[in-house]
């Protein structure tokens, strides 16, 4: 359980701890969650951004010197045990294909599946939120059936609509706002993933389980 890691500075008051592997590892991610929760109480550390098998830790250099912060982070990582986090389960109803899922059929074809079968396999999966980021409330989901993976588009779309259910590489996600994206749009949901005026603005949190359900499939 001593995966090789690299710790580097992101400017004068942040450290990035990352796995040297380029393959997502669930156990490693559970240690990242554990470290993030541990750092909340660590003197001098102010904020953490858990990513995919990495974490950005912000510190206040008036309270802790950069090299001291690096040492502290290294030691706390060594002690971080996988946090068996299983958050709430959120069901996301999806209308697959049609006008709001323009890549649905080409994606199914790419996977060598009939459209209905592709939708069923996507909805059969159990996904876990690995991290939230990039844009407000955007969930990086692990657990996509490898048979459903597809390389990102060579040219990103300038505006992928809010609610789009998307796949990119080996990852699945839902767009919390209309934004540029190079992922493939396979369907649409009405679930709002982010509202800045709510007490907890993000619907999803790391560790949450996501299940997609089939509301309709446009064949």
């Amino acid at each position, binding site marked *: 359980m001593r995966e090789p890691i*690299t710790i*580097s*500075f*992101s*400017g*004068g*008051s*942040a450290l*990035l701890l*990352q*796995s040297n592997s*380029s393959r*997502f590892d669930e156990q490693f991610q559970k240690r990242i969650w554990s470290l*993030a929760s541990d750092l909340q109480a660590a003197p001098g550390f*102010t*904020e*953490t*951004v*858990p*990513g*995919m*098998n*990495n*974490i*950005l830790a*912000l510190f206040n*250099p*008036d309270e802790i*010197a*950069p*090299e001291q912060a690096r040492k502290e982070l290294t030691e706390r990582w060594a002690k971080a045990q996988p946090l068996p986090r299983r958050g709430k389960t959120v069901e996301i109803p999806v209308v697959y294909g049609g006008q709001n899922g323009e890549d649905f059929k080409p994606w199914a074809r790419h996977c060598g599946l009939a459209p209905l079968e592709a939708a069923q396999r996507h909805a059969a999966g159990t996904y876990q939120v690995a*991290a*939230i*980021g*990039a*844009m*407000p*409330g*955007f969930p*990086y989901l692990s657990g996509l059936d490898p048979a459903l993976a597809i390389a990102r588009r060579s040219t990103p779309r300038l505006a992928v609509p809010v609610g789009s259910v998307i796949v990119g590489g080996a990852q699945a996600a839902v767009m*919390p*706002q209309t*934004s540029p994206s190079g992922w493939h749009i396979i369907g649409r949901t009405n679930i709002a993933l*982010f509202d*800045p*005026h709510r007490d907890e*603005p*993000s619907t999803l949190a790391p560790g949450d389980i996501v299940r997609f359900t089939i509301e309709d499939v446009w064949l």
Partner: protein
Amino acid sequence: MIEVLTTGAANSIQDLGRNGRFDIGVSRSGAMDRLSLMIGNALLGNELNAAGLEIAIFPFRLRFDQPARFAVTGAEGAVTLAGRPLPPRWAASAAEGETLVIAPPDKGARVYITFAGGIDVEPVLGSRATDLKSGYGGLEGRGLKRGDRLAVSPKPPMRAFGAALDPLAALDFANPLPIRAVPAAEHSVFSADARKLFSRWSWRVTQEADRMGYRLEGPELKLERRLELMSHGILPGTIQVPPSGKPIIQLADANTCGGYPKIATIIEADLWIVGQAGPESRFLFTEVTPDEANAALRRQRLEIDALARTVEVARSLAG
């Protein structure tokens, strides 16, 4: 109230930005030149984080519907109140009905207008900054438009005065602007040539330069080996190098996570220079240590604190 008479949609309400919610993807936003916003607030005895206007599209005109105190800082150019010219970094009083006009600047890219007491809009996620990309904060999460009315505190007239603190004086936009940066995670994976070029080339800011980020033009920076990175947290100032080899500086409204290799991170104390550098400006990067980065920021804070104290004394002497 003040009323916006002439503006562009890229002009917005900004403070020092949002902290504490990077973990749910909330960008920092806030002033691109935080130093000038702080100087403007210090001149008025405001909290340094008070919300002001960031003006990047000119000309900009607003009318005071009430007496108020304001300051204009940042980029330098012709500024008039009711037709009377105002010097740079000047705090003054406006009478009811007077119009403030900000012409396109001769030096720098962004002007800040601050008001005694700040602009009164509802904070969202702990800040009044407009996040133009995600559409919240400031005024309805959008840029300013003609006819917008903003609440500022009514203030009796005061004697006008200026700030001796003039960071722009040290900048020569005809030459490459020196920018300090701390080497980042993948710095050592870039080729020796690329690392040399990074700190020796005079990088040109392209037309693709906004609050989200600046694309730079120059030689292609190559990696020693192919890298597959997973999405990770990035901060404003991060210099990413996508497969094109042309660097991108991520700024105030940038995404909170990215996946491109990072060669360096511009230090907080120099980000204001980037904010004042428009397209066609050039940057010369110097590598510094995290300690040097923090020392530079502390010096900057001391200067602002000294200005704020001077203003306080001056105001008490003026009665």
